[in-house]
């Protein structure tokens, strides 16, 4: 390589030798830098030549201080032509500083090319040459530093002595121990529970609750369970539809031999979960009742001992064309009156079921009630705004004349604020008492002369409860104002006491003093009907949510017993007049018969026993049994249904 280079340079030389000085200089000096080769003519230094010498004749000064003249300007065309002719024109560079044209040699070009490609400018330079240590060590005879050895190199160290002394002191004091041999993993167990007779009981933690044990595995966890424990494909698929927490955690599978059982993949995870449960789960003691559910049932007296009571449907009274709203049994126990939405009121003979009489009123009867006195065969029928007092036509001639006399209004009268007006009803030969608003209930006094009607108006209206006297054809407003909208009102069977049921309370008034005695808190949402025990000290209240409350008036203003028997509204509750029975009828098509013994001993609570559920009516437009009444002397119950039948249940 070197030779070749040499040849080249030689050839270069041959080529360039006629050219001029530069190559000669190069050859002589053998220097790298091109500045060194030829000293620049101009000496002005690094100044903006173009600007400063723009208008001058010279471009600077040479080394001797003489002005360097600018060369005459060349004609552009001429210079172009010259360049076009000259094949070496591409090598020529105009040197502005010296104001001359320089022609690059081949070496210059090569050098430029190497620089552009990022190599060393000269090909012969090796950038990675081996290092040559120039210093000669041999035979020199002395170190670099000629200082004498210090004394401390020959005297024992005081600092070290101190350190050792300190260590010795520490070792003696037992602060530093000799390095132990790696400990052998030997847990030294001993008899921890020597004898359990010592007072270990005292040390027991008071409120420690041991963790519950894991559930023991059942048949289904076996590796080879019976066929019936393996769920079918559909069942397994149905697990996917379940909620995450309901889904069975373990799906039984059957392996035909022990060798085919794989490792259980969740064993570590389950153990981990157990660990988490043990230290993260709050523990409480829970009492789990493990008793027979039958033992929860109260011991009721046998039904057989409580007979007689109505159990089976014996008769049906057919004839009404619409739901039978109301029924009433006459005090002798022979006749039954019923009112229906088909606009008729009928009278039946109880024992035969024959319809004796039909009154075509043309308006739905809401309530119906026999006069409780036997020699006054009068029926009170509640229509929308009117109360009709009808002559039933029963009894001998004596009674009939008396009744007709009673049911005669000589001149139509009215109360001063026109709440009520009495007038004769021509068609059915009775009395028509017109009210200012719709009447909701009617109730006779036991003597048969007074009766009360309730007109649910608004709060504190004095006309809401009215007491009428039949003999004087007179109406009265016993209350100046009432606390709430009344629903129904009832007379006490023997005393001068009056019960008014508002929506949630039952107000008890003393009629002789004209003041309120009690307010019974039922706790139900809406009262539908009330009934007073013939003894007069007990009261039952039926509500529209299906609850029934028994009040002992001597005991408390709160219910003695609340029974939730029905799933729908209770339409009517009623006591039997002589037997210890009461009943409730409801829209869920059932009627309940209860036994209720009231003891004369005040210390003994009344005995209430549910006896029988009477079914048989059919639901119509969401209504079931609309009314129920007991026979006055027999333990029979009449029920009126929305399916336009009346049923008689006997024992």
């Amino acid at each position: 390589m070197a030779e070749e280079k040499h040849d080249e340079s030689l050839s270069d030389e041959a080529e360039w030798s006629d050219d001029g000085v530069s190559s000669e200089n190069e050859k002589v000096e053998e220097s790298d830098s091109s500045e060194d080769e030829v000293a620049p003519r101009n000496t002005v230094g690094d100044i903006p030549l173009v600007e400063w010498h723009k208008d001058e004749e010279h471009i600077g000064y040479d080394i001797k201080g003489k002005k360097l003249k600018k060369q005459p300007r060349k004609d552009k065309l001429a210079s172009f032509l010259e360049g076009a002719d000259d094949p070496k024109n591409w090598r020529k560079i105009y040197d502005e500083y010296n104001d001359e044209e320089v022609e690059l040699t081949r070496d210059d070009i090569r050098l430029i090319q190497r620089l552009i490609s990022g190599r060393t400018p000269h090909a012969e330079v090796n950038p990675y040459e081996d290092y040559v240590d120039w210093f000669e060590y041999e035979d020199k005879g002395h170190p670099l530093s000629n200082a004498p050895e210090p004394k401390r190199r020959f005297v024992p160290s005081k600092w070290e002595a101190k350190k050792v002394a300190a260590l010795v002191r520490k070792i003696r004091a037992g602060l530093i121990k000799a390095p132990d041999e790696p400990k052998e993993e030997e847990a030294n167990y001993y008899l921890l529970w020597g004898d359990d007779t010592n007072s270990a009981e005292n040390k027991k933690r008071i409120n420690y609750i041991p963790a519950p044990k894991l559930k023991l595995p059942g048949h289904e966890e076996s590796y080879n369970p019976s066929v019936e424990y393996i769920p079918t494909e559909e069942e397994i698929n149905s697990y996917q539809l379940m909620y995450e927490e309901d889904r069975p955690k373990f799906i039984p599978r059957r392996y035909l031999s022990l060798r085919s059982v794989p490792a259980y993949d969740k064993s570590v995870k389950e153990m981990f979960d157990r660990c988490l449960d043990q230290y993260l789960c709050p523990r409480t003691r829970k009492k789990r009742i493990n008793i027979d559910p039958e033992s929860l049932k109260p011991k009721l007296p046998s039904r057989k001992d409580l007979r007689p009571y109505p159990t089976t449907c014996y008769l049906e009274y057919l004839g009404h064309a619409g739901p039978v709203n109301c029924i009433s049994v006459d005090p002798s126990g022979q006749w039954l009156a019923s009112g229906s939405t088909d606009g008729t009121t009928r009278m039946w003979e109880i024992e035969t079921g024959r319809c004796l009489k039909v009154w075509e009123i043309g308006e739905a009867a809401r309530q119906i009630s026999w006069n409780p006195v036997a020699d006054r065969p009068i029926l009170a029928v509640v229509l929308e705004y009117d109360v009709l007092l009808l002559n039933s036509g029963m009894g001998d001639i004596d009674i009939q004349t008396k009744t007709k006399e009673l049911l005669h209004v000589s001149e139509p009268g009215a109360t001063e604020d026109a709440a009520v007006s009495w007038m004769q009803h021509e068609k059915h030969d009775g009395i028509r008492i017109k009210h200012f608003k719709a009447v909701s209930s009617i109730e006779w006094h036991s003597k048969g002369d007074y009766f009360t009607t309730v007109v649910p108006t608004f709060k504190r209206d004095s006309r809401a409860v009215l007491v009428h006297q039949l003999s004087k054809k007179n109406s009265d407003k016993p209350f100046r104002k009432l606390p709430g909208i009344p629903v129904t009102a009832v007379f006490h069977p023997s005393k001068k006491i009056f019960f008014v049921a508002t929506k949630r309370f039952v107000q008890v008034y003393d009629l002789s003093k004209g003041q309120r005695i009690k307010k019974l808190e039922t706790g139900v949402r809406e009262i539908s009907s009330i009934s007073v025990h013939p003894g007069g000290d007990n009261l039952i209240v039926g509500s529209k949510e299906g609850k029934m409350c028994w009040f002992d008036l001597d005991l408390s203003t709160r219910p003695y017993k609340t029974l939730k028997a029905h799933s729908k509204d209770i339409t009517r509750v009623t006591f039997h007049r002589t037997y210890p029975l009461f009943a409730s009828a409801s829209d869920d098509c059932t009627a309940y018969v209860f036994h209720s013994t009231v003891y004369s001993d005040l210390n003994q609570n009344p005995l209430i026993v549910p006896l029988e559920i009477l079914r048989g009516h059919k639901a119509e437009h969401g209504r079931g049994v609309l009314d129920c009444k007991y026979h006055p002397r027999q333990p029979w119950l009449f029920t009126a249904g929305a399916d336009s039948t009346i049923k008689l249940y006997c024992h």
Partner: protein
Amino acid sequence: MPPKHYRPAGKKKEGNAAKYITRTKAIKYLQVSLRVFRKLCILKGIFPRVPKKKFEGNHKTYYSMKDINFLLHEPLLEKLRQIRAHEKKVKKAKARKNKDLAERLLNRMPCYKLDTLIFERYPTFIDAIRDLDDCLTMVHLFASLPAVEGERIQVNRIHKCRRLSHEWQAYICRTHSLRKTFISVKGVYYQAEVQGQKITWLTPHALQQVLTQDVDFNIMLTFLEFYEALLGFVNFKLYHSINVKYPPILDSRLEALAAELYALFRYVATGSARKPVESQTSGLIEEKKDTEEKMDPSVDESELRLAQLQHQLPSNEPGTLMQLLEDSNTNNDDDDEDPDTKECRTLFKSLKFFLSREVPREALLFIIPAFGGVVSWEGEGGPFKETDEDIAYQIVDRPTQGHKFLSRHYVQPQWVFDCVNARIILPTDAYLVGMVPPPHLSPFVDDEAEGYVPEYGETIKRLQTAAQKNVMPLPDLGNQDIADPQSLLAQGIIDRTQANEAAEERQKLLLLEKQYHDELKKEMSGTTYSSSLSNKNSENTGSDEMQHQDEDMVPVSTEKDDEDNRAKLYMSRKKKGLFEAMEISNQRKKSKVELLKERKRKAESSKTG
């Protein structure tokens, strides 16, 4: 207006706020990190509580203040702080590249012991035994885990677990207190009865265990740390009770052959023989060992063992002592053993078992000796060879058996488990090689309470009663004898099963008597009823045509319903709710049984059709 829960300064907290503390506050109160708190809770057995009112919100964890104060005064707390400080020193030394110091410090890490903690948590031995279920399951699980460096499961830890579990099994086996076994998909369940306590544990199948990522091994290892210590102390106490030195020194050769359990059995057997005067209970294993020695006198192993015996036993003639024991023990055993243990001890008595290579050796090596059998296995170290003529049962789990000895039964492993659960030796017909064995039933289920007895369960019951009848002649005892079987038992005239039968008979008699009394009562009540009815009828004044109604005209189906309704009507709301909940759960149980029956029926119909 002060805030709602304003408490004036200086006034103490009251009620729930004083009795309970949330976890965050407890950590702050104890001045520890959550990790240390967790560890303390695990070791001390402290768990969250449910306060009556969660005063800081529903989503928080509450600890009893007493528990936290209990932790506060725990010396372990201080120790854990020291460890933490020490770890910092080591870290610092390492960071300074002071290797010597780091090493020295590492060697001197403060350590703590758990014995006081264990004694505190379980003041009596019975308490410890009662809480052993989880401990055993955990130790057995870790004994079968692979060592994983990344999860800090170290080899020596696993070996320790293995040893502890084998020691436990050796004790159970020695005292014949294993009661029930069950192969489930999860592993093998064992139930043993120690000091009247039923202990159930689960051992995983002897296969490579699966390690999942969603498990925090730090927590598991903290639990394991406590359990290891607990089981160690429990084992010590148990071994002490049968006069065996603890920790046992094992035959290194057997250990090397991975037959530690067997080695342990032998150790326990020889160990309890060391004090012949006191220990009157060790009869069987001596016997077994003796036969073993007769069996393979050629093997040098027995010599090795003899050398060990010389080393362990007191120097006065071991062989003769053992003979003495054998003679004296046979009748002494019965005195202090309960009949259950006796039954278990004699189930496989004088039967020899041989395990094939593919059978899970550990489980069977544990179970068969626990019920009095003698067992060997294919491979090195077994006490006798496959060619032994006396082998009665060979346990195999392969599709076909090539060479068969006519003198023995070849049965599948499930047979052993079923025998143990039924406490009788079942016929081997259904368990022969290559057959699909009958269903394996769980012994932990009370079939009567569940309301459904699987078919095979009934078969086993029949076999059991048949076996009992075979064993003893039917007792034709007089009424006087039946009246008090307990006294007879005391006299030792009839044994337990007979007593049971007598008791059953007595119960039957009682039942008959009761029925008779009931009927009498009914009759009496009937007469009173009719008379009362007639009285009432005479009182009634009204028309009587309708009173001839029959009382029994009420349809029967609704009567029951009505009866229910009537009773429900009279119940208080609370009781009604309880009653309904019970009914629902009963219904659910019933439907479960129904489902089982339905599936059974379908399976049968598909089989026939």
